[in-house]
């Protein structure tokens, strides 16, 4: 088992997302994160999902996704060939005595303050998933009240050698 990021371009139609996710659930795989939204074309959505599964299963699932009528492209985003980002909102307990410390930490980490209350601060942070995790660790001792992440989105690096390679093509 290993973690993989899969990118799927699909028609913006009812049920299209369920048809993709069902191919994972029927094999007992849990989707760790999933982000879906519009793309440069109005009729097409891009789905990026993260899943822990075996290499052989992944190949099979990619081929099955490719066969779905609403799917236009499917490809694995390999870490060295992709730009990946994620957005996080994290609310940390922060009484007046800790505010300055936390804000200083966030500046170093690259997070910004989205909202501030008497007892807590909500930070927003965009970055690579591991950067978000590092920031979480930094603020955890203060008390994390709420944490939400969008799930990663990704595109192939224009500078990558495999640039422009089409989706999984039939063998």
């Amino acid at each position, binding site marked *: 088992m290993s973690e993989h990021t899969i990118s799927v371009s*699909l028609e913006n139609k009812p049920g299209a997302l369920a048809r993709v996710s069902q191919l994972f659930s029927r094999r007992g795989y849990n989707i760790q994160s999933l982000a879906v939204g519009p793309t440069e074309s109005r009729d097409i959505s891009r789905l990026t999902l993260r899943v822990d599964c075996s290499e052989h299963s992944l190949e099979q699932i990619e*081929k099955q996704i490719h066969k779905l009528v609403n799917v236009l492209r499917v490809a694995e985003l390999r870490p060295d060939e992709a730009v990946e980002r994620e957005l996080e909102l994290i609310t940390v307990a922060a009484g007046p005595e800790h505010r300055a410390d936390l804000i200083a930490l966030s500046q170093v980490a690259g997070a910004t303050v989205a909202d501030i209350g008497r007892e807590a601060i909500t930070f927003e942070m965009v970055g690579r998933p591991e950067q978000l995790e590092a920031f979480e660790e930094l603020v955890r001792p203060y008390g994390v009240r709420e944490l939400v992440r969008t799930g990663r989105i990704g595109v192939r690096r224009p500078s990558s050698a495999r640039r422009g390679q089409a989706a999984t093509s039939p*063998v």
Partner: protein
Amino acid sequence: MTRMLGSDAILRCLEAEGVEVMFGIPGGAILPTYDAIARGTTVRHILCRHEQGAGHMAEGYARASGRPGVAIATSGPGATNLVTAIADAWMDSTPLVCVTGQVKSSLIGTDAFQEIDITGITMPIVKHSWLVQSVEELPAVMKAAFHIAQTGRQGPVLIDIAKDVQEAELDFSYPDKVDLPGWKPPSKVNARQVREAAKAILEAERPIVYAGGGVLNGDATRELLTLVESAHLPSVVTLMGKSCLPDSHPLNYGMPGMHGSKYGNWALNKADLVISVGARFDDRVTGKLSAFAPGAKVIHFDIDAAEVGKIRHAEIPVVGPLKLALAQLTDEVRALRESQPPKHEAWLRQLDEWRAQYPYRYNHSDTVIKPQAVVETLRDLTAGRDDVIWTTGVGQHQMWAMQYLVCDRPRTFITSGGLGTMGYGIPAAIGAKAARPDATVICIDGDGCFQMTCQELATAALEGLPIVTVVVNNGWLGMVRQWQELFYAERFAQTHLTHQVPDYAGLAEAYGCAGFVAETPGELEGVLAEAINCGRSAVVDARCDPNESCYPMVPAGAASVDTIEAPLEVPN
């Protein structure tokens, strides 16, 4: 453009697709469309007694004709009753178009009377499905549905149409083209891969063609025969592939797998080159995977890229239409053969030796009807006829039918392989009869299977679709009993059905069919002949030996070279 109701448009779409027959049952949410049927259509509607029957009839129609079968049902239970047939069509790649009524758009999502999310329920077992909520999209959806069911790897699709859509008006015109940017089944094959395959075939010392249902679906039976004959290639044929290569052809070494012949399994497992054509390395064929054809290189021809490398790594994958691929392969092989003699003459002699040494066998009897004798008698009674189509249920009788019937013409053996749907035989036979009215359609059924779908005998009787059903009545859920005998220390939990209840011949009469009983080997042939020739739907209750097990057998999980042979009381 013609102004019409959605319900009428559905029928105009079916007519435009060339649909001759649809199988269904009316109900609330599909009533507007049945009202349109009352207004008139060229499509013949067969009124079934259960929607599962309608689904299997549509499948039988598709398998016998090569055209998509059409089933129609109402919402809720009508739709859920179709699910088994949809799953069956999914597993066996049968082109099936299901049209279901749905509650009014305004009620969808409210748990309204007979509302069920049938597109959700069937999502894992259809190629695609649509919930039609606007009448304008209806023609394009119908067009796309028929296109998808038939192209690429064939299979089922479902169109769920809200009642108010059927009742709404539209300006109808049937589109010429489909607009499906994501649907691109392969239409070509890679010539270099085909050349590699040809080279491997010429170099092989022990090649074997492993042909499956894809050959029938891909309309490639003639191309397969040409390949096999021109390269003198020995072949095995799977259950789903039966009739894709003539059974009586000397290069056809029968079926491999759990109840296949010993020589078929040896042919596949001792080969040095497996040429898979439209087959999918099912566990019932391979047995223990690590011991399957261990010394073989694999060439895998398939229309579906997802099948290649799924179970067994393919050294030479060839994705694309089989008809095209096999024709190209034959050309390549012929060209190579001019300069390179084949190396597998000794292998052919070996295969013939095994075939002679390990034929299918059983203990014959003069006192009790052996189930194998039923199949052999049916085979002999119809020998030389080219108008016979066989269907089966699922279980021991299915395996005996597979072993002993000789099918020399494509699409003459119709069975449920992947899903193993008991009860498939009778409705599939009715569907096949609707597709081929001139054919004699014989369903070899089990007593367990018969009781799952026998209500459709009423359909056969009333719709003028006569079929002959031969119940291999051993009084047990025989295949389950066999497993209990072999693997569960003869603890026969809940498998005894009895020979007597129901009275099959009496039940046949009740359904408007002719009923026959054969109790002794002596009367078997006469009774079967009478049933086949009676000119109407008939049921033969053939009272068989309850203790007979189906051999050879490869136990689940065992290596498929390790077949258990029938223990013989006296050599025959």
